[in-house]
C-alpha cells in the first residue's frame, strides 16, 4: 500500500443517533487517538460521520491493524488523496490499480461521487474519463458494471479528491464506554472473556471480577486471568480487575453436606459479591459468559435459581451461542490460547459428581440461612484486590517483580 497516504474511518450504527451523535463521535476519536499513540507521525482529523487518519509515513498495515479494533468504526478505507483535478485523479487511479498486480483477466468499474458540485465534469462523464485511461494502462482489465471484481471509487470534494478501491471491515459496534458500565464475572475459561469483548463492543465499559481461592487455585490461575484482562484492555485501553478472595466462602459451602447444590450456592455467592462491587463502582449490570445448556449451572432452571441472588440485570451475551462459535470468536480476539491453559480454577475443583440441573430454590435459601453468609461476603468484598490493567502492560502480579533490566 505504498501509494496510500490516508485512511478514512467510517462510523457505523452511531450515525443513526440523533442528538447524542457528537458525543459518540468524540468518544471514538479519543479511542482512535489513544491507540495511535505509538504512531506519533499519524494525524487524526474528525469530520461529520467519519474520521481521517493521515499516515504521515507510518506503516499503513500497522495502522489498519490497530484501528480495526476500535469499537464504533464500521470500516476503514485506505485512500490516495489528490487535488480535485482530472489529471491528478487519473494518475492516482492508475497508481492504485497498479498495486493490485493484475495478472489475469479482471473485471472492473469506476464509481464517481461528486460531492463538490462545481467540479466541471459530471459523475457520469467522470466514470468514462477515469475509466478509459485505466483500461489503457492495464490491458487485462475489463469493464463490468454489475459485479466487478475491482470497484475503483472516486470521491470529489471541495479541496480534495479521494481515490480508493478497498473497504476493510472493522469491528463496528458502539464507541468505548458509551452505554454505561457493567461488571464481568471473569473465570479463566473460554466463554467469559468473549462475553466481555462482546459487551465492550456494544459500548459498555467493563470491569472484571475474578474469584480466587488460594490454595485451592494457584497463583498461575490468577495470572492467567490477569493476562486475559490484558487482552481485553488491548481493546479498551485500560480495564480494572477485582480479584475476590473466595476460599472462606467456598470452604463454608463444603461443610453443608449438600454436594449437588455446591455450584448453585457458589454462583449465588459470587453474584452477591459482584453486586456489592458493582454498587461501589457504579456498575449497572452484571455480565456472565453463560450459554444455555452448556453445563449444569447453565440450565434454565439453574439460571433462574442463581439469578435471584441479585437485583441487578444479568447480561448474558452468549446465552444462545454455540460452543464452536464462541471458540471461533475467542481465537479471533486473542483469548483462546490463554483460556485453554490448564490451571485449576475455583469452579472446577469443587465440581460435585452429580451437580443438580434443577435446583430447588427453597432448599437453597434454607442452606444459605444456616451459614450466615452475609459477614463472609462483606469480608470478601473488603479484601478484594483491585488491579488496573493497561493495554500492553507487562505482568505485574509477580510475588517478585520482573526486573526489566534482565531482558
Amino acid at each position: 500500500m505504498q501509494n496510500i497516504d490516508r485512511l478514512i474511518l467510517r462510523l457505523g450504527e452511531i450515525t443513526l443517533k440523533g442528538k447524542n451523535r457528537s458525543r459518540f463521535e468524540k468518544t471514538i476519536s479519543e479511542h482512535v487517538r489513544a491507540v495511535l499513540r505509538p504512531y506519533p507521525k499519524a494525524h487524526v482529523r474528525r469530520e461529520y460521520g467519519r474520521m481521517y487518519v493521515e499516515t504521515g509515513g507510518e506503516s499503513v498495515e500497522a495502522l489498519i491493524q490497530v484501528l480495526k479494533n476500535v469499537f464504533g468504526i464500521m470500516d476503514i478505507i485506505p485512500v490516495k488523496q489528490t487535488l480535485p483535478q482530472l489529471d491528478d485523479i487519473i494518475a492516482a487511479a492508475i497508481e492504485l490499480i497498479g498495486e493490485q498486480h493484475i495478472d489475469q483477466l479482471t473485471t472492473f468499474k469506476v464509481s464517481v461521487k461528486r460531492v463538490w458540485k462545481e467540479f466541471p465534469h459530471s459523475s457520469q462523464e467522470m466514470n468514462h474519463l477515469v475509466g478509459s485511461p485505466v483500461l489503457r494502462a492495464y490491458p487485462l482489465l475489463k469493464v463490468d458494471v454489475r459485479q466487478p471484481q475491482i470497484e475503483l471509487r472516486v470521491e470529489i470534494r471541495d479541496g480534495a479528491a479521494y481515490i480508493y478501491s478497498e473497504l476493510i471491515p472493522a469491528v463496528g459496534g458502539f464507541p468505548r464506554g458509551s452505554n454505561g458500565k457493567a461488571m464481568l464475572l471473569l473465570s479463566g475459561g473460554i466463554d467469559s472473556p468473549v462475553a466481555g469483548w462482546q459487551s465492550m463492543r456494544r459500548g459498555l465499559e467493563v470491569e472484571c471480577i475474578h474469584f480466587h481461592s488460594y490454595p485451592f487455585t494457584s497463583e498461575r490461575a490468577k495470572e492467567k486471568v490477569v493476562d486475559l484482562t490484558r487482552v481485553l484492555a488491548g481493546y479498551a485501553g485500560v480495564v480494572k480487575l477485582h480479584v475476590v478472595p473466595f476460599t472462606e466462602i467456598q470452604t463454608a459451602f463444603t461443610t453443608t453436606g449438600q454436594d449437588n447444590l455446591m455450584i448453585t450456592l457458589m454462583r449465588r455467592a459470587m453474584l452477591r459479591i459482584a453486586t456489592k462491587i458493582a454498587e461501589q463502582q457504579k456498575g449497572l449490570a452484571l455480565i456472565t459468559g453463560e450459554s444455555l445448556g452448556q453445563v449444569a449451572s447453565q440450565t434454565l432452571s439453574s439460571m433462574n435459581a442463581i439469578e435471584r441472588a441479585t437485583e441487578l440485570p444479568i447480561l448474558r451475551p452468549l446465552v444462545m451461542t454455540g460452543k464452536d462459535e464462541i471458540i471461533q470468536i475467542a481465537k479471533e480476539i486473542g483469548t483462546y490460547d490463554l483460556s485453554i491453559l490448564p490451571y485449576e480454577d475455583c469452579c472446577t475443583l469443587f465440581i460435585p459428581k452429580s451437580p443438580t440441573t434443577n435446583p430447588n430454590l427453597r432448599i437453597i435459601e434454607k442452606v444459605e440461612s444456616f451459614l450466615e453468609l452475609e459477614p463472609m461476603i462483606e469480608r470478601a468484598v473488603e479484601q478484594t484486590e483491585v488491579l488496573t490493567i493497561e493495554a500492553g502492560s507487562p505482568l505485574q502480579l509477580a510475588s517478585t517483580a520482573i526486573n526489566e533490566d534482565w531482558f
Partner: protein
Amino acid sequence: MKYFDYAATTPPYPEVIRSMAEIMEKHFGNPSSLHQYGEEADRLVRHAKEVTAQLLGVKPNEIIWTSGATESNNFALKGAAMRGGRTQGHIITTSIEHPSVYECCRQLEQIGFEISYIDPAPDGIVLLEDIQNALRADTIIVSMMHVNNETGAVQPVQQVSEWLKKVQPRTLMHVDGVQGFGKLPVVLAKWNIDLYSLSAHKIRGPKGTGLLYIKQGTELFPLLAGGGQENGYRSGTENVAGIVGMTKALRLAATEQYTLAERLTAFSQLLKTEIQAIDGLVLTNPAIASPHIIHFCYPGMKSEVILHSLEQQGCIVSTQSACSSRKAEPSRVLVAMGITREHAASGIRISLGDQHTNQDIEHLITALRQTVTQLRPLERRTR
C-alpha cells in the same frame, strides 16, 4: 590480540553476563514446578518469550527455545519431514548450507527422503530459478540460509519464500537466520517464512541457547519427547538464565542493528579495497554479501599457515566455518561455488562485530601485508 572471528562466536555483552548471573543466583526454580520458585522461573521464561516475540514481530506462542541453531535446524527439518510419522518425501536445500542443515539432510536421505541440493551461481548466491526447477508436488520443505557463514553471500530467502507461498503454500519455508540476524533486516511475518532458526552466541549472547520460530499452525514432529514443555514441541527443563540472556542479547542486537550495519559496511569496504591491492590475495566475496564477513584466498598457501601467521601478528581470523575447520578437506561451500580445490584450500574468513574500531581494522591491514611479505618465498607455484 585482536579477534576477527565473530561469525564463529562472539564475546557476550557484559549486560548479558550480569543478568544471567543474577538469575542463576536468584531464580533457580524449575519452571515446571507448581510452587513459588517454579512460578517465578516460569514467569521469566514467559516474559522472555513476550519480549522476543515483540522484537521479531511475531506471537509469543510461535517461539520455541532450543539449545542453539543446530537443534533449531534439526528440529525444523526432521520435525517437518517426519510429521505424521512419514519416512519419505522431497526436500530442497542448497549445497552451501551450514552442516547442521546439510548433515541433517544427509541423515534424512538415509531414512528414505529425497533431497535436492541446489548449487549456487559462481558468485555464491543461489538462484530462485534453480529452486523453482527443483520444486515437486511432494516437496515438504525448502530450507535456505539467509547469509552464508563462510562467504557472507546473502541468499534470496524473501524472494524464494514469497514465490513458494504463492505456488505451493503447503510446502514449508525454513530459513537459517543465524548469520543474518542483527546485520540485515528480517520481517518474518511479511516474508511468509514458516520456520526460522536463531542462535544466541552469534549475537553476543550465551552459548547453548537458540530459538526456532514456528509459524502458528505448523505441525512438527518433536525431536525430544518428555515432560511436554514448550507446548509439547520440545521437552526438557528450560534453560532459564540462558533464555533470559538470549533475550537480552537479541534486544541489544536489534537496537544496534542499523548503526552497526553502517559501521561494518565502512570497515568491510576498506578491508576489501586493501585486500585487492595486495598482490597474491584474491577476494572471494560475493557481490551481495553481509558486511560482517570478508573472504579471500591466498592461492599457493595453505589456509592454516596464513591463519597462524596472522595470529603471530596479533590477529585472530578463521579458515572455513569453525564447525568444519578441523577437517582436512577444502571447504564444501567454496567448491560448490566453483572455486578450485587449490584456491579453496587457501581460504581465509575475516568476520567483524560491533566492538571493532578503526585502529583494529588498520592493525589487521598491516598484518595482512606483512603476512604476504613473510610468506611470499614459501608460495607453492600453483598460480
